[in-house]
């Protein structure tokens, strides 16, 4: 059973709409990752945080995607203007020490853009 909690499990948005997903990392894990998994099971790393600070993010994230991990609140990933190509499973993972160690994933938020 996942200890990383992601909400919502599913969201359906029209093109141009905002889509927001939340993630509560496993307790005590300072490092949080967001990945996008497409229908072919391919993973795309989006962004990661250590506590509230961004460690690394890809160019796509810098344009229409925004993410934050405020203290004492869930982490979030938001797509400002959804496009059909954003339809995917968005996975949040947390870790004690970063990518060289075990990542604990949530069950994901599946976004469908119609």
């Amino acid at each position, binding site marked *: 059973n996942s200890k990383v909690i992601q909400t919502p499990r599913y969201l359906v948005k029209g093109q141009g709409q905002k889509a927001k997903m939340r993630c509560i990392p496993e307790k005590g894990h300072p490092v949080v990752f967001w990945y996008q998994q497409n229908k072919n099971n*391919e993973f795309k790393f989006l962004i*990661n945080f250590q506590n509230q600070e961004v460690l690394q993010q890809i160019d796509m994230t810098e344009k229409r995607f925004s993410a934050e991990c405020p203290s004492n609140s869930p982490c979030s990933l938001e797509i400002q203007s959804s496009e059909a190509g954003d339809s995917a499973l968005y996975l949040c993972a947390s870790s004690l020490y970063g990518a060289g160690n075990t*990542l604990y994933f949530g069950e994901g938020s599946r976004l469908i853009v119609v």
Partner: protein
Amino acid sequence: SQLAEENLWALSVHEGESVTVNCSYKTSITALQWYRQKSGEGPAQLILIRSNEREKRNGRLRATLDTSSQSSSLSITATRCEDTAVYFCATHQGGRALIFGTGTTVSVSP
């Protein structure tokens, strides 16, 4: 391009048989991890094998790592229907993100 990739898209076996998933990667690594993702779930780590290790076991699972050929394998013995899943290798190459392969679907039938 994929920095880690499994060699076959899909494998099918019957319960009780063994199955091996292979993975190759393209740069030097500090560690390689194997994850399993069942339908409707997020990935779950099975084994983490560091670059100075050649083999690691976890119950019915056995992972090998050959840094000279930049390849790894995950073997599952005495398979069960609940082993049906997509299996990914993932590598950490010094950056901050874990890089996942494209996955191999393993189907175990009764």
